[in-house]
């Protein structure tokens, strides 16, 4: 009796196995699981801990989660360094993104035209993107060196700065032999923003280039035949057709810039004078990790949340609109 039972049950098992592999529900869950676990463990959990920390008084010396309190927020808010960092974060993001959108548009428009050596120019412009942020920023640290800055050397030779050891000559830009890019309060912020633009420009340019090439050549031809000038073409045809993708470039830029600490940390450590160029991310790092005040660091980071949430919502709306179309 047992032999026929085995023979009968075998095909059944085979179909069941096939069913399992073809079952979209099972397969879907299985395929999504790794990503799901990754997000929960490395994004969700730390985020929840940060929220929890922000409402506690934990430090590295006293990591016990024993009190829930709003005092941490009160202390953080009252700190003038935090206030400076909060304002700086917005200045840093808004100015760099505004300039970047303009430059990326010009670059993208230029790079979608045909000219000899286009591949080389494209390659060079995309290069900063391929460089690790820290290394690129360290390169800029040298460019901005207080004594040996090559930019200063060029400025000196153009007469914008005073020549070393030449008496009587006056620099047009500044009556000194060096700019001290990272040593003067306003100039340091300028330098930080400049490097951030350098860093973000390739990505925005590539995104906008993709948008430009997606506009049908027939539309471009129609504009030519209809006889409008380039400004009107850009404002009334290119820009409206580019708007969704431009927004994507801008939102990415905002996220990467608003949460960035590398550029500030490597270039200025938040100075000069101390903490004048601090942004939320670098201030949270200094507070929470370097000083070991986990709760204040977490509370500082919480102030990024509204901006990032807003950006995420807009992104989701764009994504849904493109899906509906």
């Amino acid at each position, binding site marked *: 009796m047992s032999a026929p039972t085995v023979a009968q049950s075998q095909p059944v098992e085979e179909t069941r196995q096939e069913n399992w592999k073809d079952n979209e529900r099972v397969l879907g869950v299985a395929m999504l699981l790794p990503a799901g676990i990754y997000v929960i463990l490395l994004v969700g959990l730390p985020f929840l801990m940060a929220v929890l920390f922000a409402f506690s008084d934990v430090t590295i010396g006293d990591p016990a989660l024993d009190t829930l309190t709003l005092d941490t927020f009160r202390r953080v808010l009252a700190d003038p360094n935090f206030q400076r960092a909060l304002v700086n974060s917005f200045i840093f993001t808004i100015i760099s993104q505004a300039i970047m959108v303009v430059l990326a548009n010009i670059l993208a428009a230029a790079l979608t035209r045909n000219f000899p050596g286009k591949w080389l120019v494209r390659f060079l412009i995309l290069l900063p993107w391929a460089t690790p942020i820290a290394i690129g920023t360290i390169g800029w640290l040298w460019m901005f060196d207080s004594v040996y800055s090559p930019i200063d050397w060029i400025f000196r030779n153009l007469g914008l700065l005073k020549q070393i050891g030449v008496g009587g000559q006056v620099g047009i830009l500044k009556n000194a032999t060096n700019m001290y890019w990272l040593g003067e309060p306003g100039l340091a912020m300028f330098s930080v923003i400049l490097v951030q633009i350098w860093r973000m420009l390739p990505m925005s340019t590539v995104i906008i280039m993709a948008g430009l090439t997606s506009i*049908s050549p*027939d*539309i471009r*031809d*129609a504009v*030519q*035949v*209809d*006889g*409008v*000038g380039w400004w*009107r073409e850009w404002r*009334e*045809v290119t820009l*409206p*057709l580019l708007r969704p993708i431009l927004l994507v470039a801008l939102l990415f830029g905002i996220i990467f810039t608003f949460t960035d600490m590398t550029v500030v940390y490597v270039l200025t450590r938040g100075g000069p004078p101390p903490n004048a160029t601090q942004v939320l991310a670098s201030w949270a790092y200094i507070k929470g990790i370097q000083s070991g005040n986990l709760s204040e660091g977490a509370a500082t980071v919480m102030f990024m949340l509204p901006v990032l949430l807003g950006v995420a919502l807009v992104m989701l709306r764009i994504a849904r609109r493109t899906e509906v179309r």
Partner: protein
Amino acid sequence: MAVVETRGLKKHFGDVKAVDGVDLVIQEGEFLVLLGPSGCGKTTTMRMIAGLEKPTHGDIYIGGRKVNDFPPRARRVAMVFQSYALYPHMTVYNNIAFPLKAEKMNKQDMQQKVEWAAGMFNISHLLNRKPRQLSGGERQRVALARAIVREPDLFLLDEPLSNLDAKLRAMARDELKQYQRQLGVTTLYVTHDQVEAMGMGDRVAVMSGGRVRQLGTPQELYRTPTDTFVATFLGSPPMNLVEKDTCILGFHPEHILPAEVHRDVRDPLHIPFDVTRVEYLGSERFLYGLVGSAQGPTKIVTAIPSLVTMPIEAGQTYDFVIDRGDLSFFDKSTLLRIAPVPFAHDSARVGSTS
């Protein structure tokens, strides 16, 4: 008066000679069609006239002015693209008004013009819609309205009907031709569809390999094709070509009929025809089969009008007849049209396949 003239127009893309010496003269109010297979240079020719492409060689005159170095807007031309190229983010009104804005026309005049153009093409009720809310036929009308609103000297149409479905196309053809007559605007029309070309063109220029093979009225092209390319490009089904001695004989499918029904032929030439297949299409019958030629049996097609009710079956040989006046003669090596080659009555039989 010649509105458009091209002299020795050439466009080379590297080694590819897309357009290789085109001389065209388009008369005032004329509807001229550039007809040819894809890649024959017809669209490039039109784009050069529009100013979207710079000629490698040759000159273009519009309204007597040499316009080689003029940008499109200075040429006073309007173009309708195959894809219509409507601005997707603008309403129909703004699409039509767009060329007028470039001329810095005041709002009131603009509105009048747009309403005139929209009325012309019966799309006045669609002015507030966006292009994606329109059907294919409506989009095409918007594109046409946008083109005429500026009252251009020259109207360029690049396969404007090819995105419409077959039913709509026949109607659109008729309408388009009517609008053109009404407006009297000089028109250059590019198409690969010989039915459109024959049906709409005052004259048709057949292009191939970057050159104009023949320029003439549809009748001229059909009756006296200048070479075997033109002969086989026009007509559906196209002209039959049969080798005979030193030349190639050409005849249209509807010119060869069964001798039994085709009695009063002035100068008959009898051809035995082995029918291999009969295709019944309602208004006519297509007969596929073989006739003898210098190269052995050659496949030909004949079209029998439905008036001829004589039963014809596949597998039989019938005595077919054609008027010698309906024959075209082409040189075997140059493939160009030559004067009729006389041949004796006896040898007139192209020959049986058996």
